[in-house]
């Protein structure tokens, strides 16, 4: 896939790990598509119950994966959520940022499914 500037995900990092084998990349993307929604759900659940620990934990888990998929738009936001949830403060801002994370990821899921016919 081409990595043009307005692409919201970039696979360079993933390719560094997986190599250029198309099947292997598709396989990793499938795993990403099947596991990430659960983490998002966990994040949403944390927000609903105002459970800071759960928010921090899910953000913490999402962070490395988002880095690997080169989702630069979420580089700062996901860290913001983790840090502030740990400090147990600024829930409105955390909620707002989480919405951005969720929307962006939904878009990433869609693009990935489209680009890789999954």
């Amino acid at each position, binding site marked *: 896939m081409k990595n043009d500037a307005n692409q919201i995900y970039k696979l360079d*990092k*993933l390719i*560094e*790990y*997986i*190599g250029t084998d198309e099947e*292997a990349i598709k*396989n*990793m993307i499938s*795993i*990403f598509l099947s*596991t*990430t929604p659960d983490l998002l759900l966990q994040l949403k659940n944390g927000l609903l119950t105002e459970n800071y620990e759960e928010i921090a*934990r899910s953000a*913490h*888990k999402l*962070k*490395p*994966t988002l*880095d*690997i998929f080169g989702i630069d738009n979420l580089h700062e936001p996901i860290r913001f959520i983790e840090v502030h949830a740990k400090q147990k403060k600024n829930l409105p801002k955390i909620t707002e940022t989480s919405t951005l994370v969720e929307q962006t990821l939904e878009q990433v899921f869609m693009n990935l499914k489209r680009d890789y016919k999954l």
Partner: protein
Amino acid sequence: MEAFRIFIVEDDVFYGEMLKHHLSLNPDNEVHLFKTGNDCLKNIFKAPSLISLDYSLPDMSGLDVMKQIRKENTEVPIIIVSGQEDISTAVTLLREGAYDYFVKDPDVKDRLWNVIKKIRENLQLRHEISYLKEEIGKKYEFRNVIKGNSPAIKQIFNLTEKAIKTNITVSITGETGTGKELVAKAIHYNSSRAKKPFVAVNVSAIPGELIESEMFGHEKGSFTGAATRKIGKFELAQGGTIFLDEIGEMDQNMQSKLLRVLQERELTRVGGNDTIKIDVRLIVATNRNLTEEVHKGNFREDLYYRLLGLPIEIPPLRYRGNDILLLAKYFVDEFCAENKMPRFSITESAQNKLMRYSFPGNVRELKAIMELASVLSDTDQIDETHISFNSTDLSGNFLLEENTLEEYNKKIIRFYLHKYNENVLQVAQKLDIGKSTIYRMLKENQI
């Protein structure tokens, strides 16, 4: 080379699968993925070569998993991989024995490869070392080290066999050149400590003021010139054997320090505060008569008894009968093989000449004599003209000393007394002097 088995313990499915796939790109790696600490612990018997452990697992923390692993396997390198960017956590983990600590960022893989490379190199070196140690062991198998058929030497075989089965302290006595260090090495390399170090210390070769730091080590700055920390010989021999040669030369001050270390089984480096437990087998050797030194008050009695252990007395070569010829042949063959020369036979006249000699320098001297003879011979035989004795005791050098005649007399009598095992009557006959002359000199402590 066998597979390099890597355990990845990671509850983040995507990240774990990605690492697994990545590390499997090298076919030498056999990667196993576990999602919980318990899964990993259940499989620890598979003896992984490396464990990459996520710090926050659902069932237990990375630290707890690591502690559990360490109970089963103290060696395997464990790398903690975590999203945590917290220095104090990292420090704690490293203190608890983690090999390294990585933060989960996209560069993790480079660091993982570096670590794997280092660990593999390390493993290879360890394999090489254990192989070489086995080789050394073979070299020091009894029959390869101590040669001879005489009853005296069979008794040595018997005692050394006993010495290897236990950790008992062994005290070896024997004249110079009889092979005290060889016996010590043979004991070590045939004992259960064979894979640990053998450290030999010649006590007489170390100046008195340095001996304590040589033996027990010192801390940086403990005395002028102590620019760095030094690990002593006892610590170097940890788990293995320390061989103290010429123990009779040790000064009184050091004797009491040694005694304390042997009693407590622990030591303190010079200038240090920490006590260090030591597990070291001790073998000592001396060519002096230690009992006599104890009587004279030069050697502490309590230390003497502690060191005595299993006494092995190596007989002088001159009491070993036909071993002289057996060894002579062995040394000639060995020398020829080393120098790629055809083998020599030893003529009967040469054999007789050897058998008549007293070998004050013992086996070491015989070896030198036979090597010289091999060089001197132009034929395929070694005859008596090739055998020359250059003993330092009574040879040309002796006359160059320019002693008084009285001094020379004493030296001659002393030499013969030694040669004939302190048999005054025999010496008197040989030298054609009255035995009372010898007794008088003995009494007056002149000889």
